[in-house]
């Protein structure tokens, strides 16, 4: 056969090959009512899940997971949540120290812990806002101290019952964030182990009535900046 005839033969063969399958029924891969395709892309991410920027430091999922675990644990402790008289608790970052190599605002942990605990405690604990004490004292002074001109207080008493003193705390939270770091100089991989300790201290006798620990270890290229 000549080259031209071979070409005609090849074209005809290909055409028949496709024509033969033209009537093939289409088989759906998934005919169920559930559409499992991904949703619309967004810049928002779940606080409790690993985000797109991942490093070896403390991240949102660690904070969400840690505070949630501590709240559940504290509420299951009779010395804190099972007392006849609801104890007065102070939770702030005053005695919560960051001795780690991770740059973090400690308040993100203690604030979340206090808020979650306060919402869940439902009266089983009373929270004293010691970090707002100057605000409270200033308002109390305005209500009580006489103004120079009239001799009357600057503001009225408000609707709440006046108390002689503000609340004293029964327990206060302390704790520490520490880390253990190692870097492989040949690969650039960095490993950081975090250990976060929470302790609730009796403000009368110094006894630690509850302790909680949360730890995790991460290894990655240390190329994420925590600011």
């Amino acid at each position, binding site marked *: 056969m000549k080259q031209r005839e071979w070409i005609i*033969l090849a074209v005809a063969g290909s055409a028949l090959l496709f024509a033969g399958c033209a009537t093939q029924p289409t088989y759906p891969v998934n005919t169920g009512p559930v559409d499992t395709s991904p949703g619309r892309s967004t810049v928002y991410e779940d606080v409790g899940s690993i985000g797109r920027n991942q490093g070896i430091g403390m991240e949102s999922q660690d904070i969400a997971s840690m505070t949630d675990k501590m709240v559940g644990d504290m509420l299951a402790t009779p010395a804190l949540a099972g007392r006849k008289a609801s104890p007065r608790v102070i939770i702030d970052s005053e005695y919560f120290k960051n001795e780690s190599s991770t740059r973090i605002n400690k308040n993100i942990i203690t604030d979340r812990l206090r808020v979650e605990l306060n919402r869940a405690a439902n009266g089983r604990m009373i929270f004293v806002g010691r970090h707002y004490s100057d605000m409270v004292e200033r308002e109390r002074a305005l209500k009580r101290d006489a103004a120079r001109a009239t001799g009357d207080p600057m503001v009225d008493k408000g609707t709440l019952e006046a108390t002689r003193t503000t609340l004293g705390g029964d327990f206060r939270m302390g704790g520490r964030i520490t880390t253990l770091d190692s870097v492989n100089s040949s690969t650039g991989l960095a490993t950081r182990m975090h250990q976060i300790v929470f302790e609730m201290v009796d403000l009368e006798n110094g006894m630690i009535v509850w302790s909680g620990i949360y730890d995790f270890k991460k290894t990655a290229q240390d190329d994420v900046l925590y600011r």
Partner: protein
Amino acid sequence: MIGMTRTAIVLSASLWAAACATTDPCMTIMEERPLKSGIEMNSVHIIDSSLESSRIFATYCEGVRLGPTAQEQVESGQAPDIRTYKITVEQYDSQLTPTGTREVWAILRNHTNFPLMVEGRTQFFDSHKAPTEEATAWQRVQLPPKSIATYREMSKQSRGVDYYHIEIREQR
């Protein structure tokens, strides 16, 4: 020329026949098993298909499914499935803590030869099967190869927590 024509006819016929050999109007495929509707209370559910997946057979003729739908099969409990898994739930239960909150736990087994990192979270419900609080945050569970580990969680409410539903996924 006659020889070429004869060759062309024979070749074309064989090509056409070969092309149409796969046009059987009926085909059996494996479909992903749909989730059962409703929430099964006091249960552990592995939601990640990379950890556990079930598929069921389905036959389609001319694009139309024969027999009950996959959802109908699942609802009736009649769906014979092909199950693949990396982890299984060995035991799970709940108990009340001394302060009245509910503690749930689930023992998971890693069937692979590699360590796995999974996460679990729990939704707690009251006696009317209404959520009593937000679902807990995802908690990590490290599963050594061929070994077991326990996922543990506690509710925050101390009264009226009667049911729970645990979800397990692989950490990404």
